[in-house]
């Protein structure tokens, strides 16, 4: 067996000039076929010599297998990145990337090579290299199946499995994806895959943005003639469409083997893939439940060309790959041993109670709905049992597209009670955002109203469909509804109640608002949701007798868990600004509540409609003891105006986020107490209960690199820990890794992406978002502090501070909405500019006035500073002026 460098240049040789591919990595090798005794020449990339030249010993080997119709060129970024990493002193991984036989620059064997043969081929190849462990496999497309096959067959060498878009199994009864169905049809197959290079070109065209022409040519290089393309056709013909196919048994064998793997696994996915979509990712996650998964939203089949998969692979290996053997245990949790009371415990306790549990005054079309504890508990049990009876299991994901109200409450508790994972995305994401979220979470069940189900049908969302309303037969068929909620409840009457889930079982996936990029799914366990309930009860003194009025949907759901009655005031629950002062008073009266939760948008309208309150209303509001603005921090003036309506209530404005709903809290008195402080930013108060808040200092580049500390006055990223903090981001391993990178070892921590500082009393001041920090020559500068100074001007309605110029030399620009508003964007008037310059403690290079600042519609307070800074840069460069 000879291994030789390949200076030979023939039609089947790697041309030397290909972007990103160093010819020194290229090898050929004659490998005997273990069955036939003949030998075939393999072409492959191998970094062993490079690593030896660097004088480093590999910690293991990455065995990379391309799919159809690519070749080892696919892995060039990983090859170069791994050598660079080794050179930089990081763990050295040898990379071997093969061209499968009949593919790339490997030999054309002249015989068809079904899946089982290909798996054996790869074993013959690694045998001939006498490849030693540990080996981590990496595959893409059908190469992923071959790589999994090798992994299943080499347990002694295997240290991990990694894959980009692939499939280990094709579910029976599901039609194979249309593009392949067409390509696999006899006649079309030969024409599209061999005679012409249509299949090849179609695949290469999937990349977004489009491939560089030189890269496209490199992919095409080994497939110049029909003869050389035969492997492509062979591969497509080998896709097992049903059980009669010769490769079906091998695929079954591999799929079953994958499900038994316990080594660390990494799945990197581009969901915009017409072939290997989220369905296949979900199947793999079921087989490899311990896998680290990252879905690159917006990326597609050629994810290797679209995203930094090489960086992700190496980062992952540095965390998981060198711990050989089994998957790493989940982070040990300091709160693991803490006592745990299930969310439905109060329902159990009050199951015989005929008092109101939920009062819904927001019924569409008017009226109120009262649901007693008895009724609610009964409904929850029936839904739990009914869902189980139609095949929903513990751990299944249930996407709930139902507006807030007693029905949503019953469904959510029903799911929690049986261990199904509730997936909740805000309708405010819009259809597109919602669709991304639902597809990303890949639910097993969708429960919705006709509108949600119609979207599910039209947008091809997965899962069993349950309609909350009874539907006429025709619409039921049209929407492909499997059951109505009534039928589920009916079945639940006789079905047994499933076993309760355990504290550390997953309970919910809540989607972020998406105001800071595509919405992210945030995973919670039962223990964490229960901890949220407990911290809420303890901090605000909520007990059975308190009662809650909730004009803010997420907290409305917590009422039954808190064991106290909750009332939703008359309003359009999807539009908080429709809430009036009278409606709040009526809800307080109806539920005799001492606590009121409102969102900032709702408070604005409640204050605006206070004139309509009569004496009774005022008397009712005077009984309120605690009032919370939840969602985004509100200013002193608005909070004070609301407090006047509830003269005996202490107003609070807590700070939190989807990842940790209650972090710190400050009262109106607390805000007033810090009024004279020199601190920049918005004071959001002190950590609630046992929550911990630290600051990771920013460096000159605006990166939060400092070890998290409590030193006062240091600007940095806010890092938090709480018993009710998220478990992880769902299927966003890289995002999750960044959010927990370099955090303390004790307990679960989360990097919030918010920047601010702690003061000497341990209060937290928020100064903006991490991406909005300006890296000036004097150091990092957060926007909120100067914005508050600028907003002190009588000329200014709202202000945003953004940067122009290169990183490290960003110059601060104030972009303002003026009073009265300007009609066209441009330089602010000289007097306005003068006043603003005087107020700002940071030097401003320019003051620009715009008719309106680009604002996230769901968060009236969140100005899109990233977009605004691009606009300011263009405007101040002297280009044509547009609106921001």
């Amino acid at each position, binding site marked *: 067996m000879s291994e030789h460098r390949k200076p030979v240049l023939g039609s089947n040789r790697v041309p030397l000039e290909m972007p990103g591919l160093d010819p020194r990595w290229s090898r050929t090798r004659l490998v005997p076929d273990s069955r036939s005794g003949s030998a075939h020449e393999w072409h492959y990339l191998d970094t062993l010599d490079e690593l030896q030249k660097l004088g480093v010993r590999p910690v293991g080997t990455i065995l990379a297998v391309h799919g159809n119709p690519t070749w080892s060129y696919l892995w060039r970024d990983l090859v170069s990145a791994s050598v660079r990493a080794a050179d930089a002193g990081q763990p050295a991984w040898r990379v071997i990337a093969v061209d499968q036989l009949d593919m790339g620059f490997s030999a054309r064997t002249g015989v068809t090579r079904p899946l089982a043969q290909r798996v054996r081929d790869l074993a013959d190849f690694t045998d001939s290299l006498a490849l030693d462990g540990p080996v981590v496999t990496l595959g893409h497309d059908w190469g992923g199946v071959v790589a999994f096959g090798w992994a299943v067959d080499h347990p002694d060498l295997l240290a991990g499995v990694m894959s980009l878009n692939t499939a280990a199994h094709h579910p029976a009864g599901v039609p194979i994806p249309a593009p392949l169905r067409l390509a696999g049809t006899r006649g079309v197959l030969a024409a599209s895959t061999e005679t012409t290079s249509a299949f090849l070109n179609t695949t290469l065209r999937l990349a977004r943005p489009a491939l560089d022409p030189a890269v496209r040519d490199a992919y095409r290089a080994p497939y110049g003639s029909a003869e050389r393309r035969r492997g492509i056709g062979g591969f497509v013909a080998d896709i097992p469409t049903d059980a009669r196919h010769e490769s079906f048994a091998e695929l079954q064998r591999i799929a079953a083997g994958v499900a038994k793997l316990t080594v660390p696994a990494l799945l990197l996915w581009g969901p915009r893939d017409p072939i290997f979509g989220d369905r296949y990712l979900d199947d793999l996650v079921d087989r490899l439940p311990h896998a680290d998964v990252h879905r690159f939203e917006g990326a597609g089949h050629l994810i290797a060309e679209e995203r930094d998969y090489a960086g992700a692979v190496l980062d992952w290996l540095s965390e998981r790959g060198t711990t050989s053997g089994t998957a790493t245990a989940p982070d040990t949790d300091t709160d693991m041993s803490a006592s745990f009371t299930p969310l439905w415990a109060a329902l159990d306790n009050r199951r015989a109670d005929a008092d109101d549990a939920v009062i819904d005054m927001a019924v569409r079309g008017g009226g109120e709905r009262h649901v007693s504890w008895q009724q609610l508990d009964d409904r929850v049990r029936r839904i739990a049992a009914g869902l189980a009876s139609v095949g929903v299991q513990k751990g299944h994901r249930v996407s709930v597209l139902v507006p807030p109200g007693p029905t949503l409450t019953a469904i959510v508790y029903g799911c929690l009670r049986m261990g199904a994972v509730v997936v909740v995305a805000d309708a405010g994401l819009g259809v597109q955002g919602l669709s991304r979220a639902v597809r990303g979470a890949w639910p097993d069940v969708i429960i919705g109203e006709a509108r949600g189900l119609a979207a599910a049908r039209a947008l091809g969302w997965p899962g069993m469909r349950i309609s909350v309303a009874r539907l006429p037969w025709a619409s039921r068929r049209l929407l492909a509804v499997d059951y109505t909620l009534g039928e589920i409840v009916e079945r639940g009457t006789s079905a047994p109640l499933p076993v309760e889930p355990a504290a550390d079982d997953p309970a919910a996936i809540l989607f972020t608002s998406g105001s800071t990029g595509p919405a992210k799914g945030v995973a919670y366990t039962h223990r964490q949701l229960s901890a949220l309930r407990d911290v809420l009860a303890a901090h605000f003194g909520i007990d059975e007798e308190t009662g809650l009025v909730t004009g803010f949907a997420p907290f409305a759901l917590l009422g039954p868990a808190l064991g106290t009655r909750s009332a939703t005031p008359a309003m359009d629950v999807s539009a908080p600004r429709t809430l009036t002062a009278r409606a709040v008073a009526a809800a307080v009266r109806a539920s005799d509540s001492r606590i009121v939760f409102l969102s900032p948008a709702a408070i604005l309208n409640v204050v605006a409609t206070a004139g309509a309150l009569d004496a009774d209303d005022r008397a009712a509001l005077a009984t309120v003891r605690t009032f919370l603005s939840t969602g985004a921090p509100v200013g002193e003036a608005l909070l004070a105006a609301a407090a006047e309506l509830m003269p005996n209530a202490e107003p609070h404005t807590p700070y939190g986020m989807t990842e940790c709903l209650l972090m710190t809290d400050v009262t109106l008195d607390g805000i007033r107490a810090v009024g004279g402080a020199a601190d920049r930013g918005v004071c959001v108060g002190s950590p609630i209960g046992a929550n911990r808040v630290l600051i990771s200092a920013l460096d000159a580049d605006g990166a939060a690199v400092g070890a998290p500390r409590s030193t006062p006055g240091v600007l940095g990223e806010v890092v938090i820990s709480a018993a009710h903090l998220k478990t992880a981001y769902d299927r966003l391993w890289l995002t999750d890794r960044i959010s927990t990178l370099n955090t303390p070892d004790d307990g679960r921590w989360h990097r919030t992406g918010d920047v601010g500082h702690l003061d000497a009393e341990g209060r937290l001041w928020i100064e903006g978002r991490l991406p909005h920090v300006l890296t000036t*020559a004097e150091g990092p500068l957060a926007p909120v502090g100067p914005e508050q100074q600028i907003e002190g001007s009588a000329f200014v309605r709202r202000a945003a501070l953004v940067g*122009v*110029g*290169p990183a490290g*030399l960003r*110059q601060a620009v104030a972009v303002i909405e003026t009073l009265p508003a300007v009609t066209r964007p*441009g*330089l602010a008037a*000289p007097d306005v*500019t003068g006043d603003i*310059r005087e107020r700002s403690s940071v*030097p401003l*290079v*320019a003051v*620009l006035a715009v008719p309106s600042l680009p604002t996230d519609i769901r968060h009236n307070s969140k100005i899109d500073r990233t977009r605004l800074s691009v606009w300011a*840069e263009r*405007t*101040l*460069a*002297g*280009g*044509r*002026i547009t609106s921001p």
Partner: protein
Amino acid sequence: MIVAVTGASGYLGRAVARDLVAAGHEVRTLQRRASGVMGATDVLGSITDRDALSRTLEGVEGVIHLAAKVSLAGDPAEFRSVNVEGTRLLLDEAEHRGVSRFVNVSSPSVAHSGSALEGVGAEPASPAHARGEYARTKAEAELLALDRDSHAMRVVVIRPHLVWGPGDPQLVGRILDRARRGRLPLLDGGRALIDSTYIDNAASGLVAALHRAEHAHGRAYVLTNGEPRPVGELLISMCRASNVRPPQWSLPAGIARAAGSLIERAWALRPGTDEPPMTRFLAEQLSTAHWFDQRETRRALDWAPTVSIDEGLRRLAAHAAR
């Protein structure tokens, strides 16, 4: 030390000579008319006059070379004679006389090809790409000067950007003059972000370059206040400080550039010594961002501006009120 300043009858040259005198140096100046700097010894003559150069540099240790033909239009031969040949003669004489520090005053326009410059350093001078005779000849002069940097004579090139201040006949004077005659449009609303340098800072920066020649030699530095401003805001502020009605009209920059090119050509044919109302170079200067990274300049010269733009404007107003 004995320091020679060329072009000391100009606005910046005079300020530099004064600073040097105040710092206790013996100052000799070379220009065609009296410098008016108390305490300095004037040598009257042209930069192209070998005798005058010889007399000026007798026993001199340091040179700050500011003499130049600065104009938006004019005879190309004259630009070349003063800016290129004059600098060459001065360098020859300085080497010959054993001058050890040579500060050549240049202009950021030597590296400005018309596109926006945002936060850049001192790019190499490029005579081929510079716009207009002034920038082209200054670029050549800068390359000549840097070429002479040696152990014996440390050459530093400083490019002050848009120097202004009270009593300045060049920039402020022209702006006010144009504004009074209604010939000063804001191009594209005057949004382009530009750097400028208050006179005191420009002068102290040049003196710093002379002192720090040993550290800073062999390269060019852009020198500014490090406070970019929209060009419109700066022009309006200058007019307001000087009680002149600020520009009231805005012109699309594309039109101004095209008009500038036409007018430039017309002025070349037309007899007379006045300046054209608009040139392509001026249109670009008034409509494209050009502001600079000052970190390296401040480090190398161990210098920082002492008068902010706001303070400079107050001084401009105080001067106008006198």
